[in-house]
């Protein structure tokens, strides 16, 4: 974690346009009550207690309603007996029931990242959760329970690991979800000074790392199709990279060649772009493609990543969050995977106050233009009373002005935006099936926040749920282009984004005043399908090779 010490841009004249989405935190009323434990409230002894973790919107019981997974860490010395990842089943009435124990997901270790995907193509979403000292693969049994099959699947490491980013990805287009896993640092309890035991590691008597600690290594596992995986890190070229402090991993075809690439946000080291060569190998090309460093060539504290079409140009751009006293990065894609840093022009350079984590480029007001939202929070609880080290901070929201420029919203977007928490991962999804996007946020040593979007007078919308046949069933890596009102929007189904988190797999498109739209789907298998004149305000179920199988209007 390091900062470039960038001076914020001065905000320009505010547009004064109304913003129709209002967010209210309903987590407590909804029954999301268990805190995610990450060290003590007033101190973090080691880096593993400060990095926090991800969340996921996942429909684990296939009832059409998003359930909620909230990861948790723990703490040294006196770990609370209730500290565990939590799975909450959606009761379909804006409340949830904690089903963690019943589902077999109660576990007491340090969790960091999650990816959701149907790795065995049985129709039920499985979970892979990274952590320290080990990672977990949970198979969804289809009856409301999960089974830890990490060892049987060949994914249990002999040594302890600080697993961080992870994403399911069908890199060889065989229709089976493979798995990419990043590791943050090589973390050895015996070798790392504990916070407070040395004032030299960091100047403020806080925990050491990541700088100074050995890099984490990244790994790729090929799905054998029989419930097991083979480590192909070396042969695939992933292992050629010396390492880096890897955090959020995103799988998407960013250069439009039909093969799913990997982008990995790295903390304090150059971020990595693994280009899929289409022959089972990857080549790291982040510097060539302009997504490794800041515009001035410096490493940034890459935490979270969002992939979205910020310019309505049918191209997948990247937004990456960083440390305080630095801006996030906006990398504009030229369509063939060459990126240009447009942070300054985008207007995001005005916001440098807080450490940014989970991030999304989502159309929150259904006007057809994706906003940029990120969760923020400090890293050193010991310094929370120091005004120069803000710890509990508001959420950050930038409205898309439609010309590649964004403006920050504060009071205009409802009370939950200004509420202060120390947050990490966030996920975007429509948990109440009302046609707008809500936001789930992980807070350190607090229960999560669930920001219900009460959108009034917003535009039309479409949701797209893809089911692969030749492609992986979860359609991770699939891209959907929606054209309406003379404008194109592109989105991709991801296995992880934000910060170590997973969004609603149903892609959500705001359509503004357009009541119909045309769609093109690019499946990971290479197949393409087109739908024209599709009526708005529906969830479209599209199955590879069969087109639109169902259009569901929410009541």
């Amino acid at each position, binding site marked *: 974690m390091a900062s470039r010490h960038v*001076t914020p*841009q001065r905000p320009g004249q505010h547009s004064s346009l109304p913003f129709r989405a209002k967010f209210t935190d309903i987590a407590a009323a909804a029954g999301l009550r268990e805190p995610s434990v990450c060290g003590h409230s007033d101190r973090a002894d080691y880096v593993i207690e400060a990095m926090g973790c991800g969340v996921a919107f996942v429909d684990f019981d296939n009832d059409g309603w998003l359930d909620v997974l909230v990861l948790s860490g723990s703490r040294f010395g006196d770990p609370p007996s209730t500290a565990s990842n939590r799975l909450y089943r959606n009761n379909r009435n804006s409340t949830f029931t904690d089903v963690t124990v019943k589902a077999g997901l109660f576990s007491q270790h340090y969790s960091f990242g999650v990816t959701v995907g149907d790795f065995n193509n049985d129709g039920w979403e499985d979970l892979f959760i990274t952590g320290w000292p080990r990672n977990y693969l949970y198979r969804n049994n289809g009856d409301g329970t999960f089974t830890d099959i990490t060892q049987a699947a060949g994914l249990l490491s002999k040594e302890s690991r600080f697993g961080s980013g992870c994403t399911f990805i069908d890199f060889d287009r065989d229709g089976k979800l493979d798995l990419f896993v990043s590791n943050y640092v090589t973390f050895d309890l015996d*070798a790392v*000074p504990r916070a407070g035991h040395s004032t030299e590691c960091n100047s403020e008597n806080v925990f050491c790392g990541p700088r*100074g600690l050995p890099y984490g290594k990244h790994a790729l596992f090929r799905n054998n199709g029989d419930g097991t995986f083979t480590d192909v890190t070396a042969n695939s070229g992933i292992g050629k990279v010396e390492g880096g402090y890897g955090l959020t991993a995103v799988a998407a075809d960013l250069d439009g060649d039909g093969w799913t690439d990997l982008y990995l946000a790295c903390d304090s080291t150059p971020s990595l772009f693994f280009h899929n060569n289409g022959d089972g190998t990857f080549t790291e090309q982040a510097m060539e493609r302009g997504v490794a460093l800041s515009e001035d060539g410096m490493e940034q504290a890459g935490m979270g990543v969002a992939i979205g079409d910020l310019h309505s140009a049918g191209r997948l751009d990247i937004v990456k969050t960083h440390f305080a006293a630095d801006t996030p990065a906006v990398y504009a894609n030229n369509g063939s995977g060459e990126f240009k840093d447009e942070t300054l022009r985008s207007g995001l350079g005005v916001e440098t106050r807080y450490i940014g984590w989970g991030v999304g480029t989502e159309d929150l007001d259904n006007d057809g233009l994706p906003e940029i939202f990120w969760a923020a929070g400090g890293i050193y609880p010991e310094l929370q009373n120091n005004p120069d080290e803000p710890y509990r901070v508001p959420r950050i929201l930038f409205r898309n002005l439609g010309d590649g420029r964004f403006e920050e919203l504060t009071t205009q977007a409802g009370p939950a935006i200004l509420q202060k928490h120390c947050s990490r991962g966030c996920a975007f999804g429509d948990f109440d099936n009302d046609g707008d996007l809500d936001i789930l946020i992980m807070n350190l040593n607090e229960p999560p926040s669930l920001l219900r979007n009460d959108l009034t007078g917003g535009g039309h919308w479409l949701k797209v749920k893809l089911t692969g046949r030749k492609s992986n069933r979860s359609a991770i890596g699939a891209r959907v282009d929606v054209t309406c009102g003379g404008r194109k929007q592109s989105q991709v189904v991801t296995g992880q984004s934000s910060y170590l988190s997973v969004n609603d797999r149903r892609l959500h498109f705001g359509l503004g005043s357009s009541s119909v739209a045309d769609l093109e789907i690019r499946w990971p298998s290479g197949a393409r399908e087109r739908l024209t004149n599709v009526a708005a305000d529906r969830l479209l179920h599209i199955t590879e090779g069969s087109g639109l199988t169902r259009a569901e209007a929410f009541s």
Partner: protein
Amino acid sequence: MWSVVFLVLLLQRSEPLELAWQLAARGDRAGAEAVLQKLVLSDSKNTDAHLLYGNLLAEDGKKEDALAELNIAVVQRPRSAEAWNSLGEICKRFKKNREALDAFKKAVSADPKFGIAQSNLAQSFYEAGEKDAAKEHAERALALLGRSKDAADAAYLLGRIELNAGDARKAADHFAQAVQLAPEYAAAWSDLGQAKKLALDDAGAIAAFLQAARIDPGDAVAQYRLGAEYLRQDKPGEALAPLETAARANGGDQSTLNALATAYQRLGRVDEAAQTRRKLSEVIRRRDHESQNALSALRLNNQGAELEKAGKLTDALDLYGQAVQLNGKHAGMRTNYAVALLRLGRWRQGLEELHTAQELDPDNQQIETALRDAISQAPLSELPDWARAARARETR
């Protein structure tokens, strides 16, 4: 700095002082220093001689001797703003920033209308992170110095303050004032370009960066900024020459290497792009490995401290030595190593290590005290030359 000192001396100089001044003006510093050395010994109350001698010694990099002369001068003439200002400038030259700030405060207190001292004080406040005080004194300096070239420094500092506060437009106004007062002020042109860039004034940015690079073509930062701005404006052809110049001047600069690699890439010169990226990666990896070494050094240092506490000084020394090998730039670890050496009677090596520690952290009072104590306690035969001179100064 010289102009102020000489102006004062010009009005007051005695015969040997005049000779020294003339020698210095002719570039014969050794001759001037010889005259002054005799003069301050024979006439120790000659404050002007101490002032000039201190300044000459400072130019020769003789920190302790220079500071000793200037400190004598301010003791003899405590109400002299010029003397305090001169001491401040020499402290600053030797990175004794806290002492420099104190000296400039005294200079301004002695004469609030001394514009250069106000400007120096503003700069010292700025470097100490006290932006409000820096702004206040820079504004006073600007008012006092009028339209002189010296005023350009104050205007430039005000620009830096506004730029740091995020007001690119106000910053640009101050930088523009600075270059109006001093048209060959390269740093001000360069920062004017930065301010214009942040204000999204593409043409203004390029124009300012071009001026900075023209005035000082060997300035790697100016060349980098020009090239990077061309690149940002999608003009890789124009970017290439300044970036190549910057890379020749400072081949290890990460920003330059990144921009140069990007320019090559966009121009289709893929081999050169790849070669430049390799250099960039090496720079980054080297620094990361240094960080990793620093943490390993910390661990060794801490283990050494535990051993020292347990009375195992020789074992501790070994670990302190390993820590210093891994992270030679850490003043604290070097001090631990030095103190252990001194405690084991290895005076000469311990003094050298402590001296290095002090150079690494010139503002550290504890190291300074430890060094002074060690010099006073060490056997004369174990003193290196610099330490002998220091002991002699103390005695004097």
